């Protein structure tokens, strides 16, 4: 069964810490995405990547960066975590057309 795996389900970090959220897919997909999901705001795109070492800003990239050194892995980095980055983070991947984005289970990050 194809999978997108996010390394942590729950994380609690302190303000100012550098935080890494990892996402790995086993489907050889080219396109990978990071979203955050907040009540009343839906899913908002942070960054996406079409290929190794390639990245594009989404709608809310401020305070985040990403890394894609290998095709299967797409990492989201919070350079200096802040309380307003407390959220559910969802990784997704897709090959080509957008039907059937496959999502990871999500990481619920709390910044205190």
């Amino acid at each position, binding site marked *: 069964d194809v999978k997108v795996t996010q390394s942590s389900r729950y994380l609690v970090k302190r303000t100012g810490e550098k935080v890494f959220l990892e996402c790995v897919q086993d489907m050889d997909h080219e*396109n990978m995405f990071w979203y955050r999901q907040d009540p009343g705001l*839906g899913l908002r795109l942070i960054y*996406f990547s079409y290929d190794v070492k390639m990245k594009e800003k989404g709608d809310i990239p401020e305070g985040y960066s990403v890394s894609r050194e290998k095709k299967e892995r797409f990492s989201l980095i919070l350079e200096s975590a802040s309380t307003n980055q407390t959220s559910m983070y969802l990784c997704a991947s897709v090959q080509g057309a957008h039907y059937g984005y496959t999502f*990871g*289970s*999500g990481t619920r990050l709390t910044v205190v």
Partner: protein
Amino acid sequence: EDKVVQSPLSLVVHEGDTVTLNCSYEVTNFRSLLWYKQEKKAPTFLFMLTSSGIEKKSGRLSSILDKKELFSILNITATQTGDSAVYLCAVDSINTDKLIFGTGTRLQVFP
């Protein structure tokens, strides 16, 4: 600015009821509209719609797209408690390769 609006935000029904979830959109160079179901964790894909008037059906769920009026509906008949979830609508534009999501409709089905 491209946007997707879902309504209602929240819906509470009893088992056996039929529900209709709405999704309207404003997107430049529309390509497709997708519905997802999100329970406690990852959203799972339900339907992709590209053509007006063609109903997609899967069991008790069905969906249709109206490209003239720029909306889609998701129908669930004979609801069950397992249908309780957040239903997400997303739209894909030819201009970009990223999905634009609505805020979702939270459906709660009580026995």
